[in-house]
């Protein structure tokens, strides 16, 4: 009793009420309980503060992560353009006025663009100066003008005003509202001469910043201003589609068999143990498997979404099986009994009654597995998806790359535009994940309403 009093005195803050309790108070048990109450409530309060602190810490990390990615990535969604007066005369292009499409495609657009630049700055002389002048705009300008003319052949012979993407160095400065009149304050690879030309363009209103659609329409490129995410996005979509189509039915069927039909013997236990262990295998091992078996033995095309999909579905199978079994187990046995009692066959019991009720849990497991698969890089590197892919893949056997690998490749480059694009690609990846999760939540709500 005295020992209790000592500890209580240490834990309980002294106040008037407490002293009264020690003096008056009811029976011995009530006294002890009352004395312990303060200590217990203090522990509860402390624990609540731990929880709040933990949530605050996690939220702040999350906000920090998202903010840093967004701040670094937002500039990638805008691009600087330079206005050019391009003279599309038939002589300059080297084609006849009504030439066919393929001849138009091969016309001398490079010359036309350079002529437009020289016309804009007539005092430029000498090869190195002219080269510096042409360096103000993107090398892809020729291709863009070619696309425009082939689509609208009536433009041949006219003089048009065409906005071409600026070179990535110039573009970076324009996006950050650099002051071209004070070249010594700018840290850039551009020479003072180039900065003077840029200042003149800006004064004439020929420099503009617009939304960067090429980020979403182009594949990867050596030129930073022309690099886009479309190839990686298409590759990710194809790969994830194959993963879902392969892993979902197989995993759900395996879970149903193990849960409802498999006899309780040593073989079943062995299978279960192996499936659980498979979930813990490092993902790069699956990449080696894909390389050795699917590419070398079965001669499937290297770096194709189909191989990536098969490898990733092997990885996601254990995740979906484990969560599906858990949700099948959670369906109350009274449902199965009721269905069986009315004369439903074992398969009807599972598909008409158990599976619809277990669907929310199965979908959650599937989305977790697919989200993991979306972010996997190591196994896909092993099957060759680290290649530099420029063309957008059109089918599951075309060479492709995926979003995480694209992020990895761009992160290696030093140009500022690539730094921005890395963060922008991460934002696109996160947006993809959020869309997938939203779809899953919607599907879950639809199934959950019926219960």
């Amino acid at each position, binding site marked *: 009793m005295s020992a209790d009093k000592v500890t209580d005195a240490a834990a309980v803050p002294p106040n008037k009420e407490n002293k009264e309790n020690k003096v008056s108070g009811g029976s011995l048990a009530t006294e002890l309980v009352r004395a312990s109450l303060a200590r217990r409530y203090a522990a509860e309060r402390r624990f609540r503060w731990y929880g709040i602190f933990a949530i605050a810490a996690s939220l702040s990390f999350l906000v920090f992560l998202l903010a840093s990615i967004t701040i670094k990535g937002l500039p990638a969604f805008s691009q600087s353009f330079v206005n050019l007066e391009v003279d599309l005369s038939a002589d300059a292009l080297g084609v006849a006025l009504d030439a066919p499409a393929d001849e138009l495609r091969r016309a001398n657009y490079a010359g036309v663009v350079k002529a437009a630049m020289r016309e804009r700055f007539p005092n430029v002389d000498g090869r190195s100066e002219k080269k510096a002048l042409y360096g103000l705009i993107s090398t892809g300008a020729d291709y863009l003008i070619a696309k425009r003319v082939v689509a609208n052949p009536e433009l041949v012979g006219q003089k048009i005003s065409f906005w071409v993407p600026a070179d990535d160095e110039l573009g970076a400065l324009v996006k950050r509202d650099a002051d071209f009149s004070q070249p010594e304050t700018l840290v850039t690879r551009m020479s003072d001469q180039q900065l003077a030309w840029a200042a003149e363009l800006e004064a004439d209103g020929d420099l503009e910043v617009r939304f960067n659609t090429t980020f979403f329409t182009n594949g990867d490129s050596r030129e930073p201003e022309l690099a886009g995410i479309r190839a990686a996005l298409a590759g990710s979509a194809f790969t994830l589609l194959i993963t879902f189509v392969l892993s979902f039915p197989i995993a759900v069927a395996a879970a149903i068999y193990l849960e409802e039909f498999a006899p309780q013997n040593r073989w079943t236990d062995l299978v279960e143990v192996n499936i659980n262990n498979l979930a813990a295998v490092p993902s790069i091992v699956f990449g080696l498997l894909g390389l050795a078996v699917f590419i070398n033995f079965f001669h499937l095309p290297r770096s194709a979404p189909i191989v990536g999909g098969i490898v990733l579905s092997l990885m996601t199978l254990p995740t979906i099986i484990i969560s599906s079994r858990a949700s099948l187990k959670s369906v109350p046995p009274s449902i199965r009994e*009721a269905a*069986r*009692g*009315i*004369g*439903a066959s074992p398969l009807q019991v599972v598909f008409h*009654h158990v599976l619809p*009720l277990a669907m929310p849990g199965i979908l959650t497991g599937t989305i977790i597995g697919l989200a993991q698969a979306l972010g996997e890089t190591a196994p896909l590197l092993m099957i060759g998806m680290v290649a530099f892919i420029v063309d957008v893949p059109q089918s599951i056997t075309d060479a492709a790359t995926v979003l995480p690998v694209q992020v990895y490749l761009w992160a290696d480059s030093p140009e500022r535009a690539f730094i921005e694009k890395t963060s922008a690609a991460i934002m696109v990846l996160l947006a993809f994940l959020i869309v997938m999760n939203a779809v899953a939540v919607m599907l879950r709500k639809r199934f959950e309403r*019926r*219960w």
Partner: protein
Amino acid sequence: MSVTADDILTQPRHVELPVKDDARDAFERLTETVGTVTVADPKMRTEHVDVFYGEKQAIFDVSLDIGNNEVIAMIGPSGCGKSTFLRCLNRMNDTIPTCRVTGSMSLDGEDLYGAELDPVLLRARVGMVFQKPNPFAKSIYDNVAYGPRIHGLAANRAELDDIVVDSLKKAGLYDEVKDRLDAPGTSLSGGQQQRLCIARSIAVSPEVILMDEPCSALDPIATARIEELISELSQNYAIAIVTHSMQQAARVSQRTAYFHLGKLVEVGDTKQVFTNPTHELTENYITGRFG
């Protein structure tokens, strides 16, 4: 001298439990069921049935007939095997891997455990209502329509509607739910849910309905309604009902079977069993000496 409370409390107490000892002897001496287990022209016949859960034997040599259009009540203390026996009648024990049933059970002369009889078909002919109401996670209409749908009892939607309405009427639930057949089955009260489960069993046109303590989870008013329902249903179906309540057995059944620790002790006409039981174990149970 006066006896004080202390004297009584401190005296060594010698407790006699004559009932228990006698009961054990009586149980061990029991080799044959008292009363007539057979009926003329039975719907279901069981002979020398033993049920084992692994090594443990739950039912010892039980023979019992269930007649056409009669209600037979199975009573007995907890754990005496009446639910086990009932579940054997529509092979629901198949789902328990350690359960083994020996002996002969037949429906209209066909062996229940024979190779020719499909358990799925059997359960369409012998329906079951469980202790805790377990409607499907579907609408009221779909709950009742599920059985006819999977067994192909309706050629088109109109016929299915007829079956559903008819079953709900027979179960005494139609008036209460006729304007919300699309509401989920789980939105009904406990008594309504149990009547829904009964309607669901009736919808497949069974020949026998087994009821495993159907009213034990319900309040007295819902219980009374279901007991009325059982009396009406017995005009068309054979009903076997397991119940803990002797009053309920006395109210609804024509024959009563008393089970004790896996043996069928006595079976006979309900009035006779309750007013003048033959075996002493039955008498002890009915008079409340144990149970």
